[in-house]
């Protein structure tokens, strides 16, 4: 996490999305970050995650409209089109590791959620493999 940022630093490195309390709980919203669609989720435990809004199987920007849930301890969103689930923390697709999405760092400053212009692609698939 990035501490001690001045407002100007943040403005240069990140895009404001919305005040925290405007984000619905356990649901996503889409934002435009430097022209790219990003899905931002606020969970009922307070965590906020951002991943690509574009669903990698179809290339259609809809992930923010998926259902939030959990698989074990993993917070997930399920694609609204065909229900593949993505790990909100890493962007890894639990149903098909070959189709990850990028994650975007999130910062909250003055109660406003910001998405930092620094997307990551985690390639590590399910580290445990199938249960056998």
């Amino acid at each position, binding site marked *: 996490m990035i501490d001690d940022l001045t407002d100007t630093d943040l403005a240069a490195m990140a895009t404001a999305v919305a005040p925290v309390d405007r984000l619905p709980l356990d649901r996503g919203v889409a*934002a435009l970050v430097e022209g790219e669609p990003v899905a931002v989720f606020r969970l009922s435990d307070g965590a906020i995650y951002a991943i690509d809004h574009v669903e990698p199987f179809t290339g259609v*920007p809809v992930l923010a409209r998926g*259902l939030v849930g959990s698989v074990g301890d993993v917070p997930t969103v399920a694609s609204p*089109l065909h229900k593949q689930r993505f790990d909100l923390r890493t962007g890894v697709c639990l149903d098909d590791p070959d189709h990850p999405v990028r994650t975007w760092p999130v910062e909250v400053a003055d109660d406003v959620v910001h998405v930092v212009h620094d997307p990551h692609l985690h*390639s590590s698939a399910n580290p445990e493999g199938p*249960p056998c």
Partner: protein
Amino acid sequence: MRRRKLLVAGNGMVGQRLVDRALATDLFDIVVVGEETRPAYDRVALSSWFEGRTEDELSLCGPDVLADKRAEYLLGRRVDAIDIDRRTVTLDDDTVHDYHELVLATGSSPFVPPIPGHDLPGCFVYRTLDDLAAIRERAEGRTSGIVVGGGLLGLEAANALRALGLDTHVVEMAPYPMPQQLGEGGGRMLARWVDLLGVHLHCDVTSERFAPGEDGSVAALHLADGAVLPADVVVFSAGVRPRDQLAREAGLEIGDRGGVLVDDTLATSAPNVWAVGEVAAHRGRCYGLVAPGYAMVDILVARLSGGDERYEGNDLSTKLKLLGVDVASFGASTADGDDIDEVVYHDPVNRIFRRLALDAATGRLLGGTLVGDASGYELLRAVTLGDVDQPAELPAYVLPATVRPPADGELPDNALLCSCNAVSVGIIREAVADGAGTVGDLKACTNAGTSCGGCVPALGALLKTELTSLGVAVSSALCEHFDHSRQELFALIRFRGHRTWAEVLEAHGTGRGCEICRPTVASILASLSNGYVLDGDQAALQDTNDHHLANMQRNGTYSVVPRVPGGEITPDQLIALGQIAKDFGLYTKITGGQRIDLLGAQLSDLPLIWQQVIDAGMESGHAYGKALRTVKSCVGSTWCRYGVQDSVGMAILLEERYRGLRAPHKVKMGVSGCTRECAEAQAKDVGVVATESGWNLYVCGNGGRSPRHADLLATDLEDDQLVQAIDRFLMFYIRTADRLQRTSVWLDSLDGGIDHVSDVVFDDVLGIAGELEADMDRHVQTYECEWKATLADPERLSHFVEFVNAPDERSTPVWITERGQKVPG
């Protein structure tokens, strides 16, 4: 062992399996040379490319496979020569590569019979993705197709041509299709299925020549019997030939009928050169299936790692879905003659043919063919191979599953379940015992079901039996977050009076919920309280369509379907809908439910569109909800000379009563004005058919995937008796059905079936009729149009913005124009 350099010629299905298995030993550095420009893909599933499976989905090499530094892929390149003494190969770009071990996995190529005109433009083979792309391009805008060859692949190709919109003919020299595998009875039965599909089959005839049209490409096929068939697109499927050219030129020994001769160790006649897959001739025979190739790879890799396994040949039994029809053959499938007793089941009505061939002297099962119903295949095959003792009642196994339940549960460990990947029943049992709990797990652990997919239903059935016998309750739990079934949860929520998701999760669940339990709870809360479905914490529960009160389309835009009760609509409303479609650039279509779909709306336009719909006196049609959809009607006594009751009036009354009612699945109704039944009411969840003195009530019909005619529940009801019966019926269903269970499936799972429903609805045996009616009353009293409720509240409206931080921006899907309207590109 020191690392060795393994060179693989050919990157098809078997070549890639070899790479995967060899990498797993970590003994080799690998170079793969593949003539096709793309890495290996699932050729067995090739035809699914026409149905929308993408190249990526068909690929056998994920990014992690291609990224593995220990294997180098030289694609779009061909091995042209082998120098056995120097242990090098030369590629078509003249580069030379050395090897310690060379494996030929060059597969086969389709045989094109030398019929004059066979090389005209418009003639193709059916083997690679490039072939399919070329066929699709050629088919564009054309009308007729020919397949030469009525074998397995020929029929598959014919089905593909038909799906491309071509009027398709298959020309086969034998008197019926698939003679070698199915024999006469099976072949002729298959011909009936082919006919049913609308593909024209010409058997017992040869092709004489192809004639070009004006543009010089193929246009007609002249048959030996004088017939001339239109031929815009021609596909040859007359068998395959092993690609042994390379080996011939290098002086390797070749089988009598072609193919690179290998011994039981898969060694060719040259040192350090091996062959696997379709190109290998083992004991003189080449196999045209993937399973033997995979089996050869296992043996070869074991050998190259120091083992002494031998390849003993493969059984040729197969079971597959051909043109949607189950077809199987096993053992000496077409054995015939004086020393054979045949047991035959022949049902031309349902197009089922099953034949078992028994040794007349000993009664032992030698083989058989199954067409139209392949149940029992796994067991029968295991008996033929001697893996299972022959059951005493074996001849009875000739009966199809509808007549005699299959006995698959008795399969022994060594019976083969997935033939493509050689996975036995025992391996599946082990995997289940080790914790695999879903078909997905089993695929990942054992590879079973990952090629042709034909064994997946058997896999699912075995999994269920195994889990049950291991004492793992095959639970009715909704998902990992709730231990209850939907029915139990409904009772709990109703009894405890929960009103929010938070209360329900806290009291009965764990974790954060998921895409299964969230919409289920949402639906129960909506059935019980009828509040606005997007308020409070319910918003986060709604599935894709419910969440924006519209159906999401494949490009992320939405459809708007206003309610048209009973299908009755005024001219002004029709004009209004047309104007709305024009204003917002929407595609319009009459739906199968007697109303009008406006498609292609942007998320942020939805409220504006709804406003205009409401201004025109219409409202939400709940096409997005598991809720009442439509009440279809016929014109009835108002217009029709046969009508005996006002079916339109009754349909409107019912639609306005039950609109917005949330249920475990969607609910459809129909009302016909007489027994001619023009409204197809008996295909609906609730069907009403007029009689001279009232209405007959039918319930639990279904169209869709598994159509079911509705059952008659009562006759000659008066209007208010009818409404009361439907109130009770619907609420009873909503209380007791499982998630996503239509009334038809629910009825089949209900103890006592239709009689029980009748007892509850008319005799109130459960003493709940009062409650059911009160629940429905509350629904009717509190109904409001969700679109209107959204428009009335700025807070709710704020939900319908595409990008929170850029309300004026919207995504830009690609549109193309088709028949004068825009559709997704």
